[in-house]
């Protein structure tokens, strides 16, 4: 059992720890003069802000995420699966696109200032923008991990408490919350780490006044070419991540409670209070997630007509030009990519990432459920990829995988294989942390009972394990899928071979001036959104045998 963790550990060792160790030792041994008082003081102030915004963001994300998780786990309502899928879409959108969406809504000429011209306020370059964007990105983590656990909570425990005279507040505090401790902690850690290593949001929405460790690493490495300083900051970031995940591992292993799981217990809202809650949450989520997302497709179909350089009143008109233009290689460029091909490349990488991260994550998660000395030691390391600077890791790849592995000219670094490998590094912690609580919740005695009644090991797995796991597997797949589609982390910093993805195509359009470029970027972003949405809906709709029978 315990050796099941080895493939994942081996994978991380080769594709994560090795390149990281090589780049850190190379750059830190180059020059230790970076350890000046001034630099350390600077690093400290950056670290302080990194903590501050991550802490605030995580609390706010839970304020929205927890009620949403309850909404999705406990109640049925129209448009539920679509709304659920929509909350996951931001997770993969490139920051440039999210920034554009928020701007279309809250920017100087956005919808809000159009509707309420008297209440003008500044949105970009504020802490509010950073916090809002973090909530927007990460609420889905809480919804998926906590909601998934809540769905399978045995309602009889709560009913028993009620029968014994506890009111609903008591039930929630004394029964439900303690049972949810493991998934809550898992979600909290993931959200915190994501905010802690935030890069694009800080850079694009926060503006130059704000700097996190990850942003500072990028500036030091890529713009000042000061690799030793970048390595020092990466090391600080890694150590912090290690500390969080070690803390998490300690707490979570003590709070796992196996319970007899139940199939989904959601129902239609009954009382007036429930209806108000459901409607209120629905409205809130709709406003928060759908409006910024919808502003992109709308903008991709709208032409803002300027009066030929003599801009007077801006006139709005509908157009499909931006989409038709996507299919034309107007400038005959070698780097032109048709939208279908970009979507195909993106989907191909995403599928490979899902397959690889599940194949590695499933055995690892099941090994971690029964902790022994080996797994206890390895457990915190699993989370490290989320805390590693993508910039540093990308550079580590350069020095580690640039030599031919075989005698031929084949170099891993410049082969398309490197992309799903790099995506899996980031997806793996999600997959493991999503599967682990679900696996732990399977009571051993159910398995024994089934086996005693004569079920074969496969039949035990099929009738006991799988019904409980299926939702967690779907959630894990969704994470891996969106992580890959969004081009997280190191992959963007590799030397990319010739298979451009949707985010790459979007970035290309936005790198040159002109209304057509902007419109095409919006159109391409809309396609990326649609592809993700369809992908998530498909994953969630997959009714694998056994799911509904339990």
């Amino acid at each position, binding site marked *: 059992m315990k050796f099941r963790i080895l493939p994942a550990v081996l994978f991380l060792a080769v594709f994560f720890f090795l390149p990281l160790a090589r780049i850190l030792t190379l750059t830190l041994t180059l020059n230790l003069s970076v350890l000046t008082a001034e630099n350390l003081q600077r690093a400290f102030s950056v670290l302080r802000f990194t903590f501050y915004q991550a802490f605030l963001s995580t609390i706010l994300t839970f304020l929205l995420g927890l009620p949403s998780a309850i909404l999705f786990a406990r109640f049925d309502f129209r448009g539920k699966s679509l709304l659920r899928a929509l909350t996951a879409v931001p997770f993969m959108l490139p920051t440039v696109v999210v920034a554009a969406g928020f701007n279309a809504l809250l920017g100087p000429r956005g919808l809000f200032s159009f509707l309420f011209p008297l209440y003008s306020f500044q949105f970009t370059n504020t802490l509010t923008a950073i916090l809002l964007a973090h909530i927007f990105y990460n609420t889905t983590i809480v919804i998926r991990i906590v909601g998934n656990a809540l769905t399978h909570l045995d309602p009889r425990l709560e009913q028993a408490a009620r029968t014994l005279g506890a009111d609903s507040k008591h039930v929630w505090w004394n029964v439900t919350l303690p049972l949810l401790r493991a998934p809550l902690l898992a979600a909290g850690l993931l959200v915190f780490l994501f905010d802690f290593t935030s890069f694009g949001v800080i850079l694009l929405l926060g503006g130059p006044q704000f700097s996190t460790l990850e942003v500072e690493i990028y*500036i030091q490495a890529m713009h000042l070419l000061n690799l030793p300083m970048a390595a020092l900051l990466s090391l600080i970031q890694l150590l912090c991540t290690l500390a969080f995940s070690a803390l998490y591992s300690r707490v979570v292993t003590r709070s796992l409670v196996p319970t007899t799981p139940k199939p989904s217990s959601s129902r239609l809202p009954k009382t007036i209070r429930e209806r108000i809650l459901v409607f209120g949450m629905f409205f809130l989520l709709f406003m928060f997630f759908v409006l910024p997302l919808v502003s992109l497709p709308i903008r991709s179909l709208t032409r803002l007509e*300027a009066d030929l350089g003599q801009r007077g009143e801006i006139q709005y008109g509908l157009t499909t030009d931006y989409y038709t233009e996507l299919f034309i290689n107007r*400038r005959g460029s070698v780097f032109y990519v048709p939208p279908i091909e970009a979507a195909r490349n993106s989907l191909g990488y995403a599928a490979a990432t899902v397959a690889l991260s599940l194949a590695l994550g499933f055995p690892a998660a099941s090994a971690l459920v029964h902790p022994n000395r080996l797994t206890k030691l390895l457990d915190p390391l699993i989370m490290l990829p989320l805390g590693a600077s993508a910039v540093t890791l990308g550079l580590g790849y350069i020095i580690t995988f640039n030599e031919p592995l075989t005698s031929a000219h084949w170099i891993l670094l410049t082969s398309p294989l490197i992309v799903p490998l790099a995506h899996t590094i980031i997806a793996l912690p999600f997959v493991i942390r999503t599967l682990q609580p679900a696996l732990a919740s399977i009571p051993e005695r159910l398995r024994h009972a089934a086996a005693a009644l004569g079920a074969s090991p496969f039949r035990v797995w099929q009738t006991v394990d799988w019904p409980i796991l299926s939702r967690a597997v779907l959630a894990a797949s969704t994470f891996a899928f969106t992580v890959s589609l969004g081009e997280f982390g190191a992959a963007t910093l590799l030397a*990319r071979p010739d298979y451009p993805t949707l985010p790459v195509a979007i970035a*290309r359009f936005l790198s040159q001036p002109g*209304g057509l470029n902007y419109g095409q970027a919006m159109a391409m972003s809309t396609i990326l959104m649609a592809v993700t949405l369809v992908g998530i809906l498909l994953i969630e709709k997959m009714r694998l045998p056994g799911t509904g029978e339990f």
Partner: protein
Amino acid sequence: MKKLLLLTAFCLLLASCAPQATAPSPIEMEVVVTPAGQTVQPLSAGEPVPLTVMTHDSFAISESVLAAFEQSNNIKVTFLASGDTGAALNKAILSKDAPLADVLYGVDNTFLSRALDAGIFEPYESPALVNVPAEFRLDAEKRAIPVDYGDVCINYDKAFFAKNELAVPQTLGDLILPEYNGMLVVENPATSSPGLAFLLATIAHFGEPGYLDFWRSLRANGLVVVNDWNTAYYTNFSASSGRGSQTMVVSYATSPAAEVIFADVQLEQSPTASIVGPDTCFRQIEFVGILAGTRQRAAAERFVDFMLSLSFQEDVPLQMFVLPVDPLAILPDSFYQFNEYPTEPAALAPDVIAANRERWIQEWTDAVLR
């Protein structure tokens, strides 16, 4: 759009056939010609020679131009897009013991000294260098070979200034006048290449420590700073498709033509123009070099010659919106019609930039952001 391109192509043809034009006609351009006047011989008879070219993400080239090069030389080119200029250079430096590519394109004059000091390039005396003016040839040892240049200038919203009968600023010093309060958005030099270029222009113009006084006054005059060109141009600039609130943005001298070429409705004139007074712009020069340790030296030389040939030089403007270093290369009509170019751009020597880059950025950050 299509009409415009056809028209441009037609004008190009006309211009090149006119008697005063010194460049060869487009038909002749298809064939790469060595200085001696002989047609290029393919490198080998059998399989095409593989050549890997590392570039920054903004690199672009026409399919037809590349195909002609590949065919006549029997070379198969693979491009490795490697991030922004700093990222691409970092990768080349870190992998110099086992180079990922044979050629690196995209190092600019702000990074040039770092590239040369790291010893990533092999010298190559390209015969085509004779056509390149001395002002671009910054590396005397001919390791880094200039290919194109672009001027980072302030673009302004023409309609806004016309409508409000406001005079357009002519010098850097004008920008701190109260009538331009809150109108300028610049990029952070710590995170953006045009942002750094503009900072360098102010340092070249005001000197030290005068440039910091200028930036403090700019800050007092409602300066807006964002982290990247995307945000500055598309979110903050009022004449772009994002329609923000600032009427002046740090961008490129070629942006006005791009606004017309990539307009969503056909435009007779550009909605933007550049401020091109003395010292208001900074000239970025981009270089190509053969990476030390390449096993394809011959093919790499062919590629460098090709980048300096007219067929590539004339492809550069519409693909990358920068200008060719070869003065004989003919620009597309739109580049004459809608762009203005600085006659006296600000300049600083690459070694001076390399020596002071970090300190200048830090001082700027303390003066403007803290």
